[in-house]
């Protein structure tokens, strides 16, 4: 490479003549300067290069005479030439500009050829098209995102509006990020009962969230809610809790399976949304119920503290209550964590014999309290607390179960006696009737003055038993039909004796009536029917009552009093009097049905009236 150094553009003295005058070189015109510079550019290297290349090409073409020519060879050569010329021109321009001798005034773009114009246009159009396509994709994505958002909001607000029909929705003033701040307020302000008004439970505000699919979800945990359990034995709770734990594991799996525990890829269907809303409603209902039961338990505790009369507390803890109802009956109330559905099996879990169904009593307690809140705290009765009333009802139920089982045992042994339950639909009142059906009279079937069914009513009020019936026996003598005497103060121990005596009296009265119709002289003495057979002979048909008897409570004896007995009335003492000369024979007849008794009566009639005299009477 050669380097040329130009002289500085200073006016230099070329020569000085003899006179001392300085001679400067002649000024060169700018055009000449330009030409001079251009001439100074040495293009010889380019020429040599071209010649070299031509020689090489020729050699190559001589060597590859058999090879096929490359179709783009000409194009590449032209491009290379063009590139070289451009490089030269660029160098020239740079050189000229560096010298600052020549400035480029301007360059006009040469007029473009049509194909160049079209190519530029096509490039612009292609670029625009690409941009528009990009925008199209962006719009599409945005549309999809907005549609999903619309669907999510439609699902969420649809469910919220649906739940708002039954529950109170509140909005927080400062919503949490990612959450609109909705919540359900389950606190019941409708009750004005001061005994029932409490602070709002911490469970009463349930926050609303979005689940991954955008549907409405509740921030709650059912494990933390408690339900009240009622029973007659403390062991039932342990077994109920075990049973609830075992069922909860199955329910958990079902819930995970059903509620979409994983992430749903597709948008949920209308059925899924409906199911979600129903589930939310069920959860809210459970929470509301749990709050109510906690309030119930709380109110019971307050009643015990404020008004302990009539309620015997045997044990008390924060979530546990043991009350004594009667001498042998205890009730247990407990708040247990709610895990799954309410257990109905408490009644099947080792209930004490003769106990009423605790589930029914639990429902009754809740209904009492619900009714109280609805009636704005008006007491059930003067001076009676709700808990006292409930305990009395429980005591009555237990007692009435015992009475009922006693009556059934009684009736079991007497085929002519029927037990009929008479529902009273009252929690402290129970009623039964014992019906004695007597056979139709063979002597005078049309006799309508005597009732065929004799009824004895047993009424239990709280723990008091009263009996009402026909011909209730008294010590003095028998009462006639139609007289009803109520018996007060009859307890459970005496009741079977009393009823059996009542029934025996009715049977004896009936036999007396039949005997009278048959023309036999007869009289009734307490539980004995005295028949006078003539010739001083007297027969007595005596009923013996024994509730403890295995087969039947009423058995019959036939006692014959002989004619040498000193006085007819002394024979009624029914004592084996052997000191006198009276002949008293006894025969145990056993447990007879009414038909058998009637047949016996007929036989006695024949005995008293021999066939020669008795035809007119038959």
């Amino acid at each position, binding site marked *: 490479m050669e380097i040329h150094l130009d002289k500085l553009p200073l006016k230099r003295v070329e020569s000085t003549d003899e006179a001392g005058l300085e001679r400067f070189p002649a000024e060169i015109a700018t055009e000449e300067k330009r030409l001079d510079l251009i001439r100074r550019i040495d293009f010889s290297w380019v020429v040599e290069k071209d010649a070299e290349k031509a020689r090489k090409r020729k050699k190559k073409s001589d060597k590859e005479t058999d090879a096929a020519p490359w179709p783009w060879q000409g194009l590449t050569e032209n491009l290379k030439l063009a590139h070289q010329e451009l490089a030269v021109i660029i160098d020239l321009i740079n050189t000229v500009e560096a010298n600052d001798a020549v400035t480029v005034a301007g360059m006009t773009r040469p007029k473009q050829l049509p194909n160049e114009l079209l190519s530029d246009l096509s490039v612009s159009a292609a670029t625009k098209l690409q941009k528009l396509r990009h925008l199209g994709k962006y*719009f599409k994505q945005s549309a999809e995102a907005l549609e999903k*958002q619309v669907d999510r909001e439609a699902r969420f607000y649809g469910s*919220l509006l649906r739940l*708002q029909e039954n529950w109170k929705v509140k909005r927080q003033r400062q919503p949490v990020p990612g959450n*609109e701040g909705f919540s359900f307020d389950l606190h019941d302000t409708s009750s004005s009962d001061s005994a029932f008004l409490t602070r709002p439970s911490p469970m009463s505000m349930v926050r609303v969230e979005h689940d991954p699919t955008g549907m409405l979800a509740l921030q709650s945990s059912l494990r933390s809610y408690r339900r009240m359990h009622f029973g007659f034995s403390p062991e039932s709770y342990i077994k109920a809790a075990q049973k609830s734990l075992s069922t909860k594991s199955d329910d958990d799996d079902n819930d995970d399976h059903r509620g979409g525990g994983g992430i749903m890829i597709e948008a949920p269907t209308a059925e899924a949304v409906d199911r979600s809303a129903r589930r939310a409603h069920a959860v809210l209902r459970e929470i509301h119920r749990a709050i109510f039961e906690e309030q119930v338990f709380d109110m019971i505790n307050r009643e015990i503290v404020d008004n302990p009369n009539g309620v015997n507390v045997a044990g008390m803890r924060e979530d546990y209550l043991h009350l004594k109802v009667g001498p042998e009956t205890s009730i247990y109330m407990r708040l247990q964590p709610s895990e799954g559905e309410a257990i109905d099996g408490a009644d099947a879990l080792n209930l004490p014999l003769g106990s009423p169904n605790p589930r029914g009593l639990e429902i009754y307690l809740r209904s009492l309290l619900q009714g109280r809140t609805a009636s704005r705290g008006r007491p059930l009765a003067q001076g009676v607390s709700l808990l006292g009333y409930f305990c009395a009802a429980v005591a009555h139920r237990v007692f009435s179960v015992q009475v009922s089982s006693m009556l059934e045992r009684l009736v079991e042994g007497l085929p*002519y006696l029927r037990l009929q339950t008479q*529902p009273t*639909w009252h929690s402290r009142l129970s009623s039964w009737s014992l019906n004695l059906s007597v056979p139709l009279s063979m002597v005078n079937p049309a006799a309508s003055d005597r009732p065929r069914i004799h009824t004895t009513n047993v009424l239990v009020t709280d723990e008091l038993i009263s009996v009402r019936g026909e011909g209730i026996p008294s010590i003095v003598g028998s009462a006639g039909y139609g007289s009803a005497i109520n018996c007060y103060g009859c307890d459970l121990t005496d009741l079977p004796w009393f009823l059996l005596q009542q029934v025996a009296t009715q049977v004896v009265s009936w036999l007396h009536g039949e005997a009278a119709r048959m023309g036999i002289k007869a009289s009734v003495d307490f539980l004995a029917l005295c028949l006078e057979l003539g010739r001083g002979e007297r027969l007595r048909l005596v009923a013996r009552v024994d509730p403890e008897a295995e087969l*039947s409570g009423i058995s019959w004896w036939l006692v014959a009093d002989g004619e040498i007995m000193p006085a007819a009335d002394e024979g009624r003492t029914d004592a084996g009097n052997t000191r006198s000369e009276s002949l008293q024979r006894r025969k145990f007849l*056993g447990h007879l049905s009414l038909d058998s008794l009637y047949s016996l009566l007929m036989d006695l009639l024949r005995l008293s009236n021999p066939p020669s005299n008795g035809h007119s009477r038959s």
Partner: protein
Amino acid sequence: MSKPGPLGSGSGGVGVTSAANQAAAQKQKALLLRVDNDISQIVDNFSALLTISRVNDPPVRNSQEAFQMEMRAARMVQAADSLLKLVSELKQTAIFSNFTSLNEQVESRIFEFDQLSNKTSYLLEKIGEEAAASLKELELHYYSSMARNGAGDEEN
């Protein structure tokens, strides 16, 4: 677009003061304005987008126009999002402020529940009566049956 909405009609209830009426009208106006703004933004930006989409001669302006098109598209999407938010606000207003329909809903639910309660009470009474009748019939059958009478005869 300018028709009176539920707020305007719902504000004519009994006991609503004129201040509340004015506040409701103001709010309605503001919402309508927002809707108009959003819709006009969408329309304007779309028109500008179409204008920019034209292929111009100087190719160097393509980049500038590309950025403009992106900007217009983003503004359109933003306006659509704002409309959606407006819809959400309207829904929230319907949930919390639509007292007329809320009261009607509550009253209809009360009526439904009263009816349900009466129906349930009636049903319980019927069940009780049927249970009592069934019990009576069963007792009658039992005491008339061979099992009991046969057992009674055997005892005798």
